[in-house]
């Protein structure tokens, strides 16, 4: 289950859009070695919470800690440099670039080397090693030269995770990685994620309840911007508040 010191921590995050509260004093943490799943019905505020943690939005109140450091004031790019590896709900890759180039981009960000004008990106040993290792982990080593726009949906998901891996992140932040995958694809990705938690803990937003209950070490349930329960899968499954507020109407 991992040790008790949280690597990622959200403390009392609140955000309103006009009069509508999208997050209400959300507190949650992510500990080494675990997969912490965040579930909730549509419109519960999962996307807002992800954006608050990733740095796309600044909270009205509360703070975000990453590895013990307060990153609330940092932007998206700076949080990524601090070790926040993110995948997007809708695959977000560089369409015209090859698989290897996409992974190399991550390595560039991690090594802080985007301002090199004359060396060749794909011939740099350190970059290449990082990129290739990450692609091997997600099973894309055969597809280095393929344009990412030409990948299948599942392969794009894998590449998303591969790019996040190149950052050698302290934590992963994954927004519905299973969305749109075939059963076979989902099974494959579940295996990858299950291993990945040993590299860095994962905050997982996911709709597929089979995946969530199969993978998660802990689950938090978000309803109307509020966390109504946090705990191991069994406890969540048994929680009457969750059952009434959420599971009853969920379509897995």
């Amino acid at each position, binding site marked *: 289950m991992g040790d008790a010191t949280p690597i990622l921590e959200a403390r009392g995050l609140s955000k309103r859009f006009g009069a509508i509260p999208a997050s209400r004093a959300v507190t949650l943490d992510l500990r080494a070695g675990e997969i912490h799943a965040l579930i909730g019905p549509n419109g519960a505020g999962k996307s807002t919470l992800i954006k608050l943690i990733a740095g796309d939005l600044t909270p009205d109140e509360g703070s975000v800690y990453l590895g013990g450091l307060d990153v609330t004031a940092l932007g998206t*790019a700076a949080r*990524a440099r601090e070790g926040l590896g993110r995948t997007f709900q809708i695959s977000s890759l560089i369409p015209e*670039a*090859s698989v290897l180039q996409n992974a190399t981009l991550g390595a560039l960000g991690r090594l802080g080397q985007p301002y090199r004008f004359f060396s060749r990106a794909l011939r740099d040993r350190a970059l290449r090693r990082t990129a290739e290792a990450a692609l091997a982990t997600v099973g894309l080593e055969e597809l280095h030269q393929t344009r990412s726009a030409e990948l299948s949906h599942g392969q794009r998901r894998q590449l998303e995770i591969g*790019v996040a891996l190149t950052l050698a992140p302290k934590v992963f932040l994954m927004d519905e990685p299973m969305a749109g995958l075939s059963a076979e694809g989902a099974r494959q990705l579940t295996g990858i994620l299950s291993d990945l938690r040993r590299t860095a803990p994962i905050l997982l937003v996911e709709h597929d309840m089979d995946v969530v209950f199969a993978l998660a070490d802990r689950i938090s349930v978000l309803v109307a911007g509020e966390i109504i329960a946090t705990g191991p899968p069994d406890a969540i499954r048994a929680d009457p508040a969750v059952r009434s507020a959420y599971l009853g109407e969920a379509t897995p």
Partner: protein
Amino acid sequence: MSLNRETTASLIVMAALLSTVLWAEATGEPFTITLATRAAIFALAGIGLNLALGMGGMVSLGHAVFFGIGGYAMGILASHAQTFTPLTTWPILIEGTNAMPVIWLVAVISSALAALAIGALTLRTSGVYFIMITLAFGQMFYYFMTGWPAYGGEDGLSIYVRNGFPGLNTLDPIQFFAICFAFLACALWLYIRVDASPFGLTLSAARQNEARLRAVGIDPFRIRLVAFTLSGAVTGLAGALFADLNRFVSPAMFSWQTSGEIVIFVILGGVGRPIGPVVGAGLYVLLEHTLGDVSDYWQIVLGAILLAIVLFARGGLTGLVLGRPLPHG
């Protein structure tokens, strides 16, 4: 080094330009050399813009600013040298100069600084807003230079003798062409190298997907700003050469038509293709020169040709010949 398609095409086009000039020299057609020089300089300006536009997706309709600044760097320095008056005596004495290397350096530095400042102000916008705000900066410089009497206003500045380069007779068309061609070749090499470099990869990522770039810890704004600055510097150098080709500078270099023409070189040839601006500028100069024979209303023909290229040759001429670009590497 193995040659990919783009590099091969670049070498072929450059060789064609060079042999045209050598043939013109052999047959005593100095004016053809002048035209080729003009095309080479426009191509250099286009490569500058292509760094921002092709690689970085920044559609600047204000690159005339940098072209003009490069031109006026030459005009101002050379006019002071011509009249033996210093530019300024305070806080330090700055004299004019006729030496091309100094002029180039000043042109590159001052246009890079202008690009840095303009980029810092404008790169927060995108899409049409960016197109229009760069246009607005172009208009500001245009009207400023038109109304500023110190350096000739709208009349511009005439420099009677082309500036000098150690060891060359710059008034000889082919020797001046050699200088411009050398710069063009360097810029082309620079473009191809940057395209394959970490910076090029990052910049093209900034064009295609900002969110992705941020997610890997890179700030797209700074990447774009650096690219825009580099782009302005290359276009500024072209401006200085253009001023020396004509031995004259005027605010027309700052006009929105000039910005538009530089964009046209790039689109005609192929956006984001290394050799694109060279092909585009070459074709444009050729059309401009030969269509006049057709009729007084030759611009109708030019318009029709441009239109046909946009509508039927997607990706410009380079796209027509080479097809879509491959993912490099």
